[in-house]
């Protein structure tokens, strides 16, 4: 997935689309965002300057579907789950989660630096009659378990069933996440990063080799405008962000004083081995 932060208007359509697609519940007071289940959360970043120089950017944050150090599939959350309630799909690169397996130790939440995982502190409750709009494609969760963005895996499943009966491969447009289809600005692009025919691949141009500057990192973008969140930790997310603004790209990770000047020009290993 690639998100163009310069196109994003922060309208929130992705969040709502996600919540209604995935049967995410809501409470009377959702203003405490640390207790608010939002698989897709839009952060607001500022450049710290004052009006009229002030600038903001909205940063939508789904689950980053990390590949873990060296992209071996040991995502921060997957490797710590004691009950194998979450795992890494080597076929799709999507981090799975079984809500009915999870027993709520919340270790995965602690391990995730993106706060992409949310705990059901309460029993999900819908106002009388509203459970009528719940979708059968995603099972409603119960109190006491962790949940997170699934890249709308059920949409993949449905597309796959159709492809199977029609005896063909899934097409790019057939499997798109709810946030992608909802975005009125077309800021989100979704597809198979490993498939050169897909738009995401063409935008990101992921570098298959480990980054010579940091061997934990694999799949760094060769596009100077594209970056990932906390890439230096070696989580190797599958969500890439894109912006023309340097301060935005810098905000994607942490840098020591003066460090940014050296790294900002370095994109993927393309320079060292094309």
């Amino acid at each position: 997935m690639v998100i163009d932060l310069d196109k994003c208007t922060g309208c929130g359509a992705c969040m709502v689309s996600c919540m209604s697609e995935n049967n995410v519940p809501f409470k009377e007071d959702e203003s405490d965002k640390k207790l608010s289940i939002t698989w897709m959360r839009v952060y607001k970043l500022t450049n710290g300057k004052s009006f009229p120089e002030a600038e903001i950017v909205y940063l939508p944050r789904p689950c980053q579907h990390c590949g873990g150090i060296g992209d071996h599939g040991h995502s921060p959350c997957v490797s710590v789950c004691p009950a194998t309630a979450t795992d890494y799909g080597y076929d799709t690169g999507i981090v799975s989660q079984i809500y009915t397996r999870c027993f709520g130790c919340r270790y995965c939440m602690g391990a995730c630096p993106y706060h992409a995982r949310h705990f059901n502190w309460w029993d999900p409750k819908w106002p009388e009659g509203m459970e009528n709009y719940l979708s059968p494609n995603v099972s409603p969760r119960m109190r006491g378990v962790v949940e997170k963005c699934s890249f709308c895996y059920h949409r993949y499943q449905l597309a796959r069933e159709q492809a199977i009966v029609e005896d063909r491969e899934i097409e790019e447009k057939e499997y798109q996440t709810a946030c992608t289809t909802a975005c009125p600005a077309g800021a989100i692009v979704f597809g198979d990063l490993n498939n050169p025919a897909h738009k995401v691949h063409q935008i990101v141009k992921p570098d298959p080799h480990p980054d010579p500057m940091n061997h934990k990192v694999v799949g760094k973008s060769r596009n100077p405008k594209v970056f990932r969140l906390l890439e230096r930790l070696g989580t190797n997310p599958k969500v890439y962000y894109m912006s023309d603004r340097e301060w935005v790209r810098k905000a994607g990770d942490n840098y020591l004083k003066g460090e940014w000047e050296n790294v900002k020009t370095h994109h993927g290993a393309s320079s060292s081995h094309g």
Partner: protein
Amino acid sequence: MKIDRRSFLGLGLGAAAGVALSPVGVKLTDDSSIWTQNWPWTPVPEDGKITYDRSVCSLCPGACGISVKKINGRPVKIEGLDDYPINNGGACPHGISGLQYLYDPARIKTPLKKNGNKFEKISWDEAISLVAQKLGEIRKSGTPESLGLITGADSGSMAQLFERFMDAFGSPNTYNMPSLESNLALTAAALHGADRNLGFDLDHSDFILSFGAAIIEGWGSPVACIQANASRRERKAKLVQVDYRLSNTANAADKIIAVKPGTEADLALGICAVLLAKNLIAGDVNTSAFAAMLAKEYTPEKVEAITGVKAADMEALAMEFIKAKAPVAVPGKGRGDVGQSLREFAAVQALNALADRLNKKGGVFVMYPADYLSFSENVMDDAAKQGASKAKLAGSVNELVDKLEKDGGLSALFIYNANPCYALNNPEKVKVAMDKVGFKVSFSSFMDETALRSDVVLPASIFLERLEDVVSGGGLAKTVVGLCRPMVKPIFDTKHPGDALILLAQAMGDSIAQSFSWNSYDACLEQVTGKIWDTLSGDGYVVIDDKPPVGTPATDFTFLASAPKAAVPMGEGDYTLVPVDKMRLAVGSMISSPFAVKIISDKVLSGKYSVVEINPATAGILKDGDIAVLKTAMGKALVKIGFNEGIMPGVIGMPRGLGHAFNNPYVAGKGVNVNDLIGPVIEPGSGLDAAFGIKATLSKA
């Protein structure tokens, strides 16, 4: 025999061993965990056949096409409709939340009658005959003009059906809530002649000069505008935002021109003056009174003094604007609905006119309203003819409120698609005015602030339950008529307001009944849209026009030449309080859904407090997150301080759309209704409430 310790021991051990060697333990351990995985109170959605139906969303004037996903006919998801001429595939958070409106238990489930200060349920027959009887009395008393109508929609068959009823009944007193559409129509009327709309061709402009318009935050047709902005980036077209805070639009703009709140008109006129002074205007405008006025009143120095924009910057901006291939100036602060002044709209439109951008690709289209409805001649008896020919009580809904509050004048009032008791400035005054009206009938779907004060509620089915023609509005440079189709049978005992109106008319008998001879609204719609019905019902929409109108309309500058005064904010205070429109918050007659409320930032709503934007530089002793008392001439409220580098020092920004007061814990009782704190400032000449803000003071709570 003696049962001693050992016997008990034996008993215990035996039992333990017995159970241990039976399946009980294993099975119960497993089952208990499976039980937690299938708690009976966790809903299990029914599975089945997946289908997708197309319709149109009429929650806001955006009129987007939507696709409704159903399981065994049960709607489960709303998404943007691909290839729809307005939003092709895109959607906004409110449209997607549509199903939450549909199933909301807080909806009005049956017709209601006010009894004392309580509502009691009544049947549709009772309700209709009750209203019919009341209205009948009014007609008998020979004052049919004392029936009023306040409505939001002013286009489409429903609007005309209500109009028709008012005519047939004999009253001219129809009033529209302020909306971008109505403001643009007023502007067109003042500059180009009555009965026109203005459309802004943002998709093809290469230089958009926005005077505070929240183009990507709900202005006009929200999704269409957001998409226009996205394509603008690809077209490398420029956006310059004139604003006093870093709205999302300002943030997306290539350049921000910081102006003092409420001086946008002066800047626009200043730019006009520059263009004239530099002789960059074609035509004979130069000799007009308007030109003279500009030359006198709007010298760069004066404008700098008023707006705070450096003369040099303004001149540069003027040059950039006129030199651009396809520039366009866009009026309407925020969403461009309430708190707007005709002076400002006209000034901006004048700039477009002077720059010769009328009816040009990428400019402003002066369009005639979509004319696709053909109603049969209205049957009016003498009473109706007399009444309808009388003068209106007031020029605008704001003036009507004044009039009613002072000395009444209406004996009955219909409210449709409107929530004046919340959406107009100083709602308290509106409520007093409402109470002066003897008999109020609400066609609302939700028990909103206005419905609460009405005597009879004829609950309306919402857009997912009804058939209706939806006309695109909101400053779009094209006119599209979409067909909103029922996705489900009404969930509660509600009716299509059209059907309610027809039933009512027929219950009233005589000429009124003859004017409403259809047996259902659906039949009516099919008949009146005869010309386009087949395409409409076939494709789901009809594009009336999307090309620049031919010819250049004349522009009459007399209104501006008369140098109308700018509205000044009421009261005193070190700060200017201005309402802030947020894309995630619904405004006007529309109420935010639980989902919409959930996604509101904690920098907008924190617990039960509205968070106000304030620049740290002018926060004084107040700190970020403090609870403070915000006082204005209209009242005071407890708010939370939210430091925001993105707002002009001295200005307080308060989100609009919060502070609803009715019984729905998910969306009401949160924050403050900013309108409570702002008093209307009626603009002479237009009757608009031009209060862009109000002076305010802040003190630590």
